[in-house]
């Protein structure tokens, strides 16, 4: 037996030597690249996994509830149609191509052009590339509607079912893509800062700030060892995954690497930090020209010969490989399904995403002492010089704070100007409140950050009720970012602590003692000052007149929404919360002749005496406003329309 193996190996070696000439090598390479056939099942599993990943990443961004324009609806419809077809395997390859096109559009237009946070990310790019390459594989020949229909057609015709095999050049490209990711990632790490452990150390200190990691015994050497091991493993994966013999030894270390990384690095997503460990290419059986596979009894629905002693002496080994492949693809699918089930579309941005986030509405607390003037806090020259390398991050931060300050100043000036030139709401009337008030027995709301809480955590439903749907969504996004995010809500010893507002809530309300314990004296003092504050009016949160959706106009100044020729309580509640809807209802009850009444001047238009603005079915109307309240009111209205 051993002698026979040696002889076989010798024959293989001599054949390889004979093949060593350049044209033959090229021919072998070409055969490997575009002339190999293999089972289509791995491609099919890949197709299904990619469709689930596309849903995980984009389904929420493209849901129809948020549709504002026909173009958005069309994009959303295209996305769901393409990815659903990809998942079930209807016109599989075309569906994969269409999915790649939609995802590519999102990457370029939303991500690169519009700069939506997290969209122009290399994980999204990889999804686009992988979906495109999937379209080049025989991904519809297994586990698909296409396959089911083909088998039915064959049965009706009395023919054998079509084989579950195909040319796997697309899988070869996917394999190259995967290796490329590992190799270029390793190349990036072959730098002194990584090899010395400095980069990994800063990453760990960043993610695990608050734990004194550096004080752990052996932390320094461990970081260096981990850095070197990471580079070695990535290099090995980059090269070894292309070599069938090395592959099986690398699959488990690779999976372990990503499995460790996933919970360790909070911003890694399902694709792993380096990219997906995609189901690897099955080792195709290279056949000389003219060779035909042995004809044996075929299993239903499969083009492969049934297992038999005739098939090959190495059948057990291939079986083991098949089991490994199945386990591997099953793992990917399980992970994808888990992520889809959990709605795990956590923003996959590893690089200071919180800095780049668009600050919306009242989420951001007023600048603290350190932000009152960035210039005031200028560091000594020695520090500045040393910090040159992170000047970009500094600039970002400073720009954000300046924008915040400018916004506040602008709002203040606007209020002053408004107060000076017109009767109506007083300058401070309706200004966003600072109060923390009980909304229910065990729930409390903070006007400053427009969010509600119980002792168990933040309460999105109540937030929507009190401050509107938009506030609820903002809170939801904060919660999705996790309790450890800079704007998260964390449970600390039976209390809910909001890092954004720096307030802790217990069963009976905001707790100064607990706030002091968690956020420090300054935060506790701030909270104590706010506890006596009166609730602000729902109106006056801003000055804008805007359209949250087609046909609806809302005015921040009076916290009311209008549709066609009437004030609309439902949209008002959605946009500004229940108190605003109640206030509007009271105004409507007082009748159209009241000082703050709402009335119809002509058919198809509605005017609000409180804001001195009129609307028709197209939105705020300068013509009707001028006719009802004069030219000055029309000009002021025009200034406020966004």
């Amino acid at each position, binding site marked *: 037996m051993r002698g026979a193996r040696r002889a076989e190996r010798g024959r293989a070696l001599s054949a390889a030597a004979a093949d060593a000439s350049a044209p033959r090598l090229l021919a072998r390479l*070409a055969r490997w*690249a*575009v002339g190999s056939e293999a089972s289509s099942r791995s491609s099919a599993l890949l197709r299904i996994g990619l469709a689930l990943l596309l849903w995980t990443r984009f389904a929420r961004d493209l849901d129809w509830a948020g549709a504002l324009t026909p173009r958005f609806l069309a994009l959303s419809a295209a996305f769901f149609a393409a990815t659903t077809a990809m998942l079930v395997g209807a016109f599989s390859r075309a569906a994969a191509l269409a999915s790649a096109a939609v995802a590519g559009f999102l*990457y*370029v237009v939303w*991500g*690169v052009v519009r700069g939506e946070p997290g969209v122009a990310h*290399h994980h999204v790019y990889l999804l686009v*590339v992988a979906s495109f390459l999937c379209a080049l594989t025989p991904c519809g020949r297994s586990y698909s509607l296409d396959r089911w229909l083909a088998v039915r057609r064959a049965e009706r015709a009395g023919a054998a079912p079509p084989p579950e095999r195909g*040319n796997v*050049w697309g899988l070869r*490209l996917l394999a*190259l893509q995967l290796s*490329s990711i590992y190799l*270029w990632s390793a*190349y*990036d790490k072959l730098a002194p*800062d990584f090899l010395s452990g*400095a*980069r990994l150390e*800063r*990453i760990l*200190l*960043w*993610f695990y*700030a*608050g*734990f004194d990691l*550096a004080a752990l015994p052996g932390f320094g050497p461990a970081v260096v060892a981990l850095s070197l091991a990471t580079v070695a493993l990535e290099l090995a994966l980059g090269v070894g995954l292309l070599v069938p013999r090395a592959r099986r030894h690398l699959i488990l270390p690779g999976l372990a690497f990503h499995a460790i990384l996933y919970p360790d*690095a909070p911003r890694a997503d399902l694709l792993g930090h*380096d*990219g997906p460990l995609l189901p690897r290419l099955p080792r195709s059986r290279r056949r000389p020209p003219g060779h035909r596979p042995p004809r044996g009894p075929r299993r239903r629905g499969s083009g492969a010969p049934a297992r038999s002693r005739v098939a090959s002496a190495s059948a057990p080994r291939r079986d083991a490989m098949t089991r490994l492949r199945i386990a591997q693809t099953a793992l990917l699918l399980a992970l994808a399904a888990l992520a889809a089930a959990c709605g795990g579309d956590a923003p996959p941005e*590893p*690089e*200071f995403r919180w800095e780049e986030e668009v600050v919306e509405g009242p989420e951001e607390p007023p600048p*603290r*002492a*350190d932000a009152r003037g960035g210039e*005031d*806090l*200028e*560091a*000594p020259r*020695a*520090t*500045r010089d*040393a*910090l040159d*390398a*992170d000047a970009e*991050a*500094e600039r970002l*931060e400073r720009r954000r704070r300046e924008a915040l300050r400018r916004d506040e100043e602008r709002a203040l000036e606007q209020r002053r100007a408004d107060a000076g030139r017109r009767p109506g709401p007083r300058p401070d009337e309706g200004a966003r409140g600072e109060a923390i008030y009980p909304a229910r027995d065990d729930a409390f709301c903070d006007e400053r950050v427009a969010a509600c809480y119980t002792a168990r955590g933040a309460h999105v439903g109540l937030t929507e009720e009190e401050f509107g749907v938009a506030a609820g969504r903002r809170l939801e996004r904060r919660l999705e970012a996790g309790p450890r995010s*800079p704007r998260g809500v964390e449970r*600390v010893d039976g209390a809910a602590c909001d890092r954004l507002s*720096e307030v802790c809530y217990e069963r009976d309300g905001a707790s100064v003692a607990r706030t002091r*314990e*968690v*956020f*420090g004296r300054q935060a506790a003092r701030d909270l104590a000052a706010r506890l006596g504050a009166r609730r602000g009016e729902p109106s006056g949160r801003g000055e804008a007149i805007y359209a949250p959706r087609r046909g609806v106009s809302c005015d921040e100044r009076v916290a009311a929404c209008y549709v066609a020729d009437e004030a609309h309580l439902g949209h008002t509640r959605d946009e500004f919360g229940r108190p605003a809807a109640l206030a509007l209802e009271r105004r409507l009850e007082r009748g159209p002749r009241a000082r703050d009444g709402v009335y119809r001047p002509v058919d198809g238009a509605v005017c609000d005496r409180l804001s001195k603005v009129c609307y028709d079915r197209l939105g705020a109307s300068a013509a009707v406003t001028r006719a009802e309240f004069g030219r000055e009111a029309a000009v002021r209205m025009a200034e406020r329309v966004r």
Partner: protein
Amino acid sequence: MSAAALRGAAFAALALYVALSPAWHQVLGGDLELPRAWRMFASAGVGLVDARFRVREDDGRERPLDRYEALGIALPRAAPARIRRPRGAVEFWALVRELCERLPGADLRADVRVATRAGWRVVELPPHGLCAAPAAPNGGGR
């Protein structure tokens, strides 16, 4: 051109793109979003200020200062990010100011290093205490 040749040409083009396009960024220093570089976590933590505070006593001896304890924060992991991981000079000096306010008259010292893309860089601080006004205008103590 036969289908096989077409497939071969397409394969070659795509393989070249897949294998070599990251060089545009990683070797040649391009900055477009297409093609992509494969750099993972390269920016995470850049700007992080790793500071170890000390208080110098009257007799010249120095003792380490736990910033969380000094600020009355019982759970460091729940502390605001500006305290746990100050980033950049502005946040660092704001933290120093908070500490100086909390420890009036203390001679606060620190070993500070900043994470940059090229590795850790030790920050040279003024030789006198951090709370001394001239060293950190408005950023130090009163």
